[in-house]
Structures are given as C-alpha cells and as structure tokens.
C-alpha cells in the first residue's frame, strides 16, 4: 500500500504536527461551513457570509489594539456586524445585499484605520495578507478549543432552527402561519453564519472561509433535494476538498522548484470549483421529471 500511495503523499505528511493541526481544524471548519453553508446559499446570503468573514478581520485587528484576544475580536465583530446587517437590511435580497455592502465598506474602512494606528507592530502588513489568504499550516494548536466551541454553537443554531429556516426560505407567509418568526430565525441564522465564518477566517483565511461556505453547499444542492442529504454532501465535499488541498499543498513543497510550497487556499478553492462544475454537468444531464402533465395557464 505504501508503494501505491508514496508518489501521492510526500514523506513526513502523517507525522508532521502542523499537518495534524491543519487536518483537524481544517476538517472541523470544513464540516461546519458546509452545514451552515446550505442555509447560506438557500437564503441567498453568500455575500453576507463573505462580508462577515472579512469583517472579522477588522475585529481581529481591533482587538489587538484594545488588548483582547483576537479570537473574541473576530467572533464579536462578526456577530455584531451580523446584527447590524440584519437590523438595517431590508428583507428583499437586493436591499439586503446593499446593506451588506455598506456595512462591509464601513467596516473595512475601520479596518484600514485600525491597521494604520497599529503600524507599531512590525508584522502588520503581513498579518493582513495572512488573514486574507490563510495560514493553514501555521494554526496555533491552542485555538482548537475555541474552534470547537464556535463550531458547536454555529451548528447548534442551524440544527435547532432547521425546520423553521427551511420553511421560511420557501415562503415567509407560510412560516408565519405555522407560528414561526421568520425575522428572528433569519437573524439567528445570520449569527450562525457569523460564527462559522469568523472561525474559518481566523484559522484558514478569509478566502477559504467564503469558498467552504458557499461552494460545497451549492454543489450539494444540485446533487439532491433531500435537505438532510444536502447537509451531508455539503460537509463531505468541503472536507474532501480541504484535506486533499492540504495534502497537495504539502506535496507541492517537493515539486520543482523545490522548497516553495503552493498555498492551501489555491488548491482547496480550485478543488471546490471542480466539484461544483462536476455537479453542474450531472444536473444538466438528468432529464427533468416527466410530471409536466398538469396544465398550466
């Protein structure tokens, strides 16, 4: 077996400690993002998910200034931003995206200001880029506990609101008639998205945060209509893409020119893209169910 896998898995992969952390944290984040992602895509909130990931960067920078642990800065900012977005956002998707954009613009302006004030710290510029593009192999193992906590919280929220969210995504009126409060459910969902994206932005970067939130879920939605299965597929695709991406990134150190590794973000993103396009091909081939017998207008 070693002989078969040897060309694929470069030496030291399984014994490397950063790799362990990456696989673990990356894996958890992928699964959480996949689950929360289904609701994100179904509710058309991909932009909010992306904006929240980026805004948590602001929180990260800000918290360093005030002296709070960056983790809480990340989470706190994105949850607060989610609250603001939900408050000022209109229910129509266009109005919502507009509000998201405004909050993001203001938030990033704030980030610029904080980074400017923060220039006494030498690695600031590097920090921005790191946060934007990810740092899979340099995750601090001590964050695993927080990651677990946030993950449980995010998944817990959407699991609890599973049925109300599905119903209100189909029709807000039907949800109200059944006794659901669509606005409240939506606000809580946005908070779950905030938690999920803040922890993924922190650990694996803002790019991957959005990619893992949106891509696997979008692919899974094309594969099946059963909501439970969509969740499963979404988590699985995200997980496979992440682990495979980690492997490839590790391997790339050994590719010519030796000593330079390609970033994990690149691999994971393109793996997700490939999965998405594959499901597109599959869906296009399936004939529509022959139920068009019922007359229409």
């Amino acid at each position: 077996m070693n002989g078969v896998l040897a060309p694929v898995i470069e030496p030291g992969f399984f014994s490397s400690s950063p790799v362990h952390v990456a696989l673990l944290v990356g894996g958890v984040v992928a699964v959480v993002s996949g689950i929360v992602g289904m609701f994100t895509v179904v509710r058309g909130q991909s932009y909010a998910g992306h904006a929240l990931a980026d805004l948590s960067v602001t929180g990260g920078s800000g918290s360093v200034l005030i002296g709070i642990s960056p983790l809480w800065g990340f989470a706190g900012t994105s949850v607060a931003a989610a609250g603001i977005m939900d408050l000022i956002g209109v229910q129509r998707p266009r109005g919502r995206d507009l509000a998201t954009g405004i909050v993001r613009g203001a938030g990033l302006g704030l980030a610029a200001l904080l980074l400017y004030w923060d220039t006494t710290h030498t690695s600031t510029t590097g920090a921005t880029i790191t946060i934007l593009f990810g740092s899979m192999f340099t995750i601090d193992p001590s964050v695993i506990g927080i990651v677990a906590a946030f993950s449980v919280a995010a998944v817990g929220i959407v699991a609890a609101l599973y049925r109300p969210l599905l119903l209100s995504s189909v029709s807000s009126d039907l949800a109200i008639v059944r006794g659901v409060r669509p606005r409240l459910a939506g606000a809580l969902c946005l908070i779950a998205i905030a938690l999920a994206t803040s922890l993924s932005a922190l650990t694996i970067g803002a790019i991957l945060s959005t990619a893992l939130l949106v891509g696997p879920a979008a692919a899974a939605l094309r594969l099946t209509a059963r909501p439970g299965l969509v969740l499963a597929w979404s988590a699985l695709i995200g997980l496979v893409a992440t682990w495979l991406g980690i492997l490839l990134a590790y391997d790339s150190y050994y590719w010519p020119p030796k000593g330079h590794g390609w970033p994990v973000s690149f691999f994971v993103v393109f793996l997700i893209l490939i999965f998405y396009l594959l499901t597109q091909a599959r869906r296009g081939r399936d004939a529509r169910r022959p139920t068009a017998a019922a007359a229409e207008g």
Partner: protein
Amino acid sequence: MFSGFMINTWVVATIVAVVAGSVGFFVVLRGSAFVADALPTGAFAGAAGASLIGVNTLVGLGVFSLLGALGIGWLGRRGRHDVAVALALVAMLGLGALFLSFTTEYGPEIESLLFGEVLGISVNEIAPVAALGAVCVLAILVLFRPLMLSSVMPELGEARGVRAHRIETCFLVVLALATSMALPVVGALLIFSLMIGPPAAARSVTARPLLAMGLSVVLALVTVWLAIAVSYQTNWPIGFFVGTIAAVCYAAGRGWTALRSRRLRRSQASTLPPVAPTASAVA
C-alpha cells in the same frame, strides 16, 4: 493640499467619482452590490500577479477584473447568481494567493491597493485612468436605455430585443473597467463603497433615472473630495473616510425615505368618508 503632486490626486479622484457615480447607479438598480465588491477584490489578486511579473499593475488589474466579470457571467448562467459571484471571487483570490506565494515581499503597495493611497498617483497614471474613465461613462450613456429596461423590466426588455445575457455581460465588463481604473486611488476594498452608498442615497431622493444618476455622481464627488481633504489633514487612510461617508450617505437616503413615507401616510390619513350604512357589508 492643492499643490504639486496633490493635483494629480484630485484629478484622478474626480474622474473616479464620476465613473463610480454613474456605474454605481446601475449597480444599485440591478442589485449587483456583491459583484461590485467582488470584482475589485479579485482584481487585486491580479495586481499582485502583475507586480510579480513586472507588468504595469493596471494591466494586471484590468485583465483579472475582466476575467472575473466574464467568469461571473459564465458561472451565473449555470447556477445561482450569488454563488457564481462568490466562486469567481474565491477563484481569483486563490490565484492571487498563488502569485503572492512566489514573492516574499508583501510590500506596502499591496496594502495601498487594498485600502487606497492618497499620495501614490504619478502624472503618467492620469492619462490611462482618464481614458478608461471616459470609456466607462460613454458606455453607460450609450447603454443607458437597454440597461434601464433590462434592469427594471426584463420581460419588456426581451420583447424589445434587449437580450438580458448580453446586457449583463456588457454591464459586467464596464464594471470591471471601472473597478480596475479606480483601484489605485481609493483601493480595492472601497471603490465599491463609492458605487453603492452615493447611488443608493440618490435613488432614495428621486426616482427619475437621469436625475438620480446625476445626483449619485454629485454625491460621489462630494464623498471623494471630502475624503481626500480630511485624509490629507489627518494622515489617516482615505479608505476609512470613503467607507464611512458612503455609509452616512446610505443612512441619509434610508432616513429620507422613511421620513417621506411617514409624511405621505399622515397626509392621507383622512380618507374616504364612510358611505351610508345600506351600502356596507352585512354579516
């Protein structure tokens, strides 16, 4: 503030504001806030790649934002639009990450591309910016009517021969041009604030299209001028002021709308007097 090299900044910023105001009008109308955000962010990755190979940053910007726009169009035809934008965005950023990994200098230019750099404009950058800007505004004016039709009433547009896909692609291309020309001044992350805040406020004030577009240009100009002035005085990043002022514009627009609808409701509070009982319903 108005001496020497600052003149360049004022000139370029004015051009940028005019373009952002006009293109932004349609961004808001078509609900393309995410696209207007994603294109600059992704294009920034192209700029990084360009600086890597030593090509003019503007070219890298332009190529990437164009590729991004076409990618969004292509993916958007095959699935949900917001998913398409998100995937195109992360694809561009993934490439950007790849490019950046080949260089160890995360120079301040990268950051200025993200957040904007007031003093970074040289004279020979004005000409290409002006040219691109003119093309964008011209394109918007030429495409004004089909854009209005396909944005507001797509079915009517189709009936008149305005193919939604083609218009969408054209619009995305114009957006790509606008973002790539504006990036050097206000930065990737904030050009879209100019394209969203002022136009949203303008639309709250008036529904007449040309007037709204004109107003959105004016508001964008005011925003940028104010941002430059204050940024110059305080030395704080211009992006902060653009983002904040844009948010204020948006808030003002929303407030105006709320105020107006309340006034409307109050003036119509006294309505039809009840007709004689015999005409009313009986259980």
